[in-house]
């Protein structure tokens, strides 16, 4: 487990910033009680954890360490970064754009489907096209995240069957991808 290089940090923040607003700073800045959280790389996976935990994890051999803290995503071999579903909690706290879906759209989403216009209950204002959004149900529970297919102004004029948000990850993956979600 090691800390990130400059380039890795930049790629990760660029990706996270697609879904979050300026409040992303809160991830790095030390909390009021003095605890600081850090990003660490273990193999190809990036974890977010408290600094004390990161320091303690050094006492384990790399091969033996399976996971530590919250997994944010995976670095690909070409140097890109893929956000994992497990980062949903982090993203939801600092989301820039949000979509609330009706009860009839929850199950299709959890089975891996996209969010249709008919499922959309509410949409963040002034949301551009191809922007990262957090998908929530009517009780403000985050279900996943995706990318808008149209801008919020255009979505209002769409057909009920047309896609409003392309799914990137959803909570259903915890069951569907159970075998591969944490494998290195």
């Amino acid at each position, binding site marked *: 487990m090691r*800390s990130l290089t400059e380039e890795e940090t930049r790629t990760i*923040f660029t990706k996270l910033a697609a879904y979050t607003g*300026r409040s992303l700073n809160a991830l790095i800045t030390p909390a009021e009680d003095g605890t600081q959280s850090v990003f660490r790389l273990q193999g190809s996976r990036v974890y977010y954890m408290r600094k004390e935990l990161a320091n303690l994890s050094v006492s384990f051999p790399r091969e033996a360490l399976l996971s530590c803290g919250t997994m944010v995503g995976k670095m690909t071999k070409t140097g890109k970064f893929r956000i994992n579903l497990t980062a949903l909690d982090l993203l939801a706290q600092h989301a820039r754009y949000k979509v609330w879906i009706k009860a009839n759209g929850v199950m299709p989403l959890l089975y891996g489907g996209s969010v249709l216009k008919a499922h959309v209950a509410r949409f963040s204002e002034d949301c551009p096209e191809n922007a990262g959004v957090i998908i929530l149900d009517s009780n403000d529970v985050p279900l996943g995240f995706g990318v808008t297919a149209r801008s919020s102004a255009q979505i209002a004029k769409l057909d009920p069957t047309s896609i409003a948000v392309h799914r990137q990850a959803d909570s259903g993956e915890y069951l569907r991808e159970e075998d591969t979600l944490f494998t290195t």
Partner: protein
Amino acid sequence: MAPSKGPNVGGAKGVAKGGAKGGKSSSLSSASRVSKSKDGPKRPPAKEQKTKPRTAQENLKRKKKRVYTEKELDLPELNQITPVGVIKPKGKKKGKTFVDDAEGMMTILAMVNAEKEGQIESKMMKARQLEEIREAKRAEAEARMKERKNKFDDVKDSIRQKKKGGRGDKAAEPTSIKDSISKPGRSKKKTVAFA
């Protein structure tokens, strides 16, 4: 066969060299003896000696023995394919540079955020402009449709009026004629037939 040949050849060469060396040494020694023994009269042979060493193998061998290093020769370096990533500056530290301090992270994050917001802003601007254009187009199309409809209605009305006018004239004339000619009972029948 090969191993037997090798040593033979080597031996022969060795022998030849040895022979040559031996001959050279003997000639030198004899010359020195001659020079020592007789001073004035034997100078022509000395001239011959001058010419010999320049062409002789011994002198050439001596020159070859001096080994020059690459730097001394100052020759242009060979054309080698050296990928960009391979050449590293000499003074620089080896390996990765980690960002572990909060300040470094914050600067990177600030840069990324600024970039992202700029992108979003430009996207929104573009979207707004496109939306305006779309609105204008729609308004224009609507106006055109309305105009066309109005024109159509006008044409319809004019045709109706024409028809009404025509019928009215035609109907008025015959009825008047009929009224004048026919009895009121017949005219009633006609009206029923028309209806």
